[in-house]
């Protein structure tokens, strides 16, 4: 516990936990928002420290090549979201959508969620990870329902039911993996530790692994939002507070996908098991196609971007399913960039909904005229999320489509056309949201644009230049996965 790596890990886990307790206890709303920011910042710094030094893997926690980038990303987005959340929540209190009582609850839950996600990423134990994902689900369920409107409660209830079923399926898969591992590794904690499983996976019973992966893919896939398990996702995004939408899209989906990746690497290490690729490819592609068409009839701006998250999760799953160094690299990079982009979009959307007083898109027009910064921010976000250069997602989509086309032309064409269909929907919406004569009420925006700017700057830089260290590391992980 004395080495700096362990300290950092402890900080990442304990600071949010302590902050959650503190925030639940403190009454004042102004300091709590800052406390929320401060706690997130400390966690982020601790995560950065992990880049320099890592603790040795233990029975329960591990910092390895695969999860470290997700830890840094999660704590970073959590930090920027907390900054955004401060200005967002202030407005919610003024308009009395939230009472101070609920705000305390909100902040405590926010930090609990951070704890749960960090735990899920750091866990070296199948069971511990499952518990963490479960905890994250429950906290987000509560956050989604926080406005207590009929629609919010319904969204929360739907999320809860579907999430619970998914998590139950995942547990069954976890048990099966343990069973498969027990025969080789022997009973005890080792049979549930990632670090051991990956090394010994070659000797596992392939039939058990196949069944396990099926359950895990469906179970954690529910959390990822893969079609047809996605139903909770749009409503949960649309009805909850926007910072939570940002965290959901930017982080929680990643965490679930991360879990699938962990299991995929175990599957890949076993020669007798079914290749996980085709399953992931079909679910991923189904998500992309479905979400692309669903984008067209959306009326609610947050639901629109929620469906876009489904689409992108589909792309990432598809990429990992295709495998190969190029596609895996692109998938990893896409995960990171999508997190940054989508959370930035939700930051913009949150402010837009506040200044316009509505989330209904037909009531919002001409944002670049009435609110230039917000409007152009939205334009940039849509351009980024649609995969246009110079922003980073162009690179990943380029890599995914080209590397697929040489192997599976039909799949690449379907994927490409779906991306085009999605682009059509997003652009059509963007046209009416950002351009034309302004419509409706137009409060001046008092938003903090730092988080948005920081995210877009990162995505822009990534589109043009990736640091070689990051690239080498990504490539290493990409090989690890295939």
């Amino acid at each position, binding site marked *: 516990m004395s080495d700096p790596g362990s300290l950092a890990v402890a900080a990442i886990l304990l600071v949010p936990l302590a902050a959650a307790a503190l925030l639940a206890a403190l009454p004042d709303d102004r300091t709590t928002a800052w406390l929320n920011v401060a706690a997130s910042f400390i966690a982020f710094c601790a995560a950065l420290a992990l880049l320099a030094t890592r603790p040795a893997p233990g029975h329960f926690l591990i910092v390895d090549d695969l999860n470290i980038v997700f830890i840094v990303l999660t704590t970073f987005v959590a930090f920027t979201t907390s900054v955004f959340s401060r200005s967002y929540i202030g407005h919610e209190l003024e308009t009395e959508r939230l009472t101070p009582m609920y705000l305390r609850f909100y902040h405590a839950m926010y930090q609990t969620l951070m704890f749960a996600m960090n735990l899920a990423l750091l866990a070296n*134990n199948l*069971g*511990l990870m*499952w*518990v963490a994902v*479960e*905890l994250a689900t*429950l906290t987000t*369920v*509560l956050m989604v*329902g926080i406005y*207590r409107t*009929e*629609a919010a*409660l*319904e*969204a*929360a*209830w739907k999320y*809860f*039911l579907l999430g*619970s*079923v998914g*998590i*139950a*399926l995942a*547990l*069954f898969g976890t*048990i*099966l993996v*343990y*069973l*498969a591992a*027990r*025969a080789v590794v022997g*009973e*005890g*904690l080792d*049979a*549930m530790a990632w670090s051991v499983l990956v090394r010994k996976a070659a000797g596992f*019973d392939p*039939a*058990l692994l196949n*069944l396990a992966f099926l359950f895990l893919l469906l179970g954690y896939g529910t959390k990822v939002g893969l079609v047809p398990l996605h139903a909770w996702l749009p*409503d949960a995004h*649309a*009805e909850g507070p926007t910072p939570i939408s940002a965290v959901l899209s930017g982080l929680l989906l990643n965490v679930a996908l991360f879990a699938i990746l962990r299991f995929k690497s175990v599957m890949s290490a076993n020669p007798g098991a079914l290749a996980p690729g085709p399953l992931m490819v079909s679910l991923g592609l189904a998500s992309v196609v479905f979400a692309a068409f669903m984008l067209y*009839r*959306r*009326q*609610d701006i947050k*639901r629109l971007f929620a469906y876009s998250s489904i689409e992108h999760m589909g792309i990432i799953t598809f990429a990992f399913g295709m495998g190969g160094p190029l596609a895996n690299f692109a998938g990893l990079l896409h995960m990171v960039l999508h997190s940054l982009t989508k959370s930035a979009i939700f930051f913009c959307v949150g402010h837009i909904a506040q200044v316009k007083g509505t989330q209904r898109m037909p009531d919002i027009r001409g944002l670049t005229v009435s609110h230039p910064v917000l409007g152009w921010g939205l334009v940039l976000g849509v351009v980024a999320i649609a995969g246009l250069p110079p922003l980073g997602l162009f690179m990943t989509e380029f890599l995914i489509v080209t590397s697929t086309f040489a192997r599976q032309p039909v799949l690449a064409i379907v994927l490409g056309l779906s991306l085009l269909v999605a682009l059509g929907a997003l652009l059509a919406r963007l046209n009416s949201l950002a351009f034309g004569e302004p419509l409706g009420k137009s409060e001046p925006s008092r938003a903090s644009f730092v988080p948005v700017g920081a995210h877009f700057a990162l995505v822009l830089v990534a589109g043009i230049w990736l640091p070689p260290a990051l690239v080498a590391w990504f490539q290493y992980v990409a090989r690890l996965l295939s």
Partner: protein
Amino acid sequence: MIDRLALDIAHLCAGGLVLVSFMLLYQDRLTGLINTFALHALVVSFSVAWQAYIQQAPQLYITAAIALGVKAVIIPLALHRIIVRLGIHRSIEPVVSIGQTMLAGIGLVALAVMVMLPVTAQAGTLAREDLAFALSVILLGLLMMISRRNAVSQVIGFMSIENGLILAATGAKGMPLVVEISVAFSILIALIVIGIFLFRIRERFETVDIHLLHQHRGEQP
């Protein structure tokens, strides 16, 4: 010899659980449904206790006790009170069709067995059969969730899934304590949240029929 008997009893328990799951599917009265669920939990807790005995894993007794205390006693009682308060304790739930549901259930059990067949005996006979039964219980629980309209029945369906999971987890010999904790944990949290939600839903909609919920959608077509 004692092993043989122990295995048979465990097998019997697991089979009994599947049978009770079918009974759950068959019940169309809420009161009867809750009582049957209590029986379901009872069988699970006995099964877990038996596993604790034959595996000489005393920590499993805790799990058994939780299952017995919470799921066989407290929750059924609470659910009884809820349905009385909601005034739906006498209503007969419109089930899709008992006959068809049963047929589907039998198909699911067959599927579970088929899927488990290729698993090598290396994993242990006990594990393989327990797993087949656990999978059956899980699938039957899901079937129940989708064939019922009432929120109470759905929650019961979900809890029967959890019972199946416990069966599987305890059947997996030597699985570390983490599992028990997590299961207990999830039961607890799930109960709280379900309670809160049922409370809120009653407060808001005056009914627990989630069929009506979708009318209050954020986005009308």
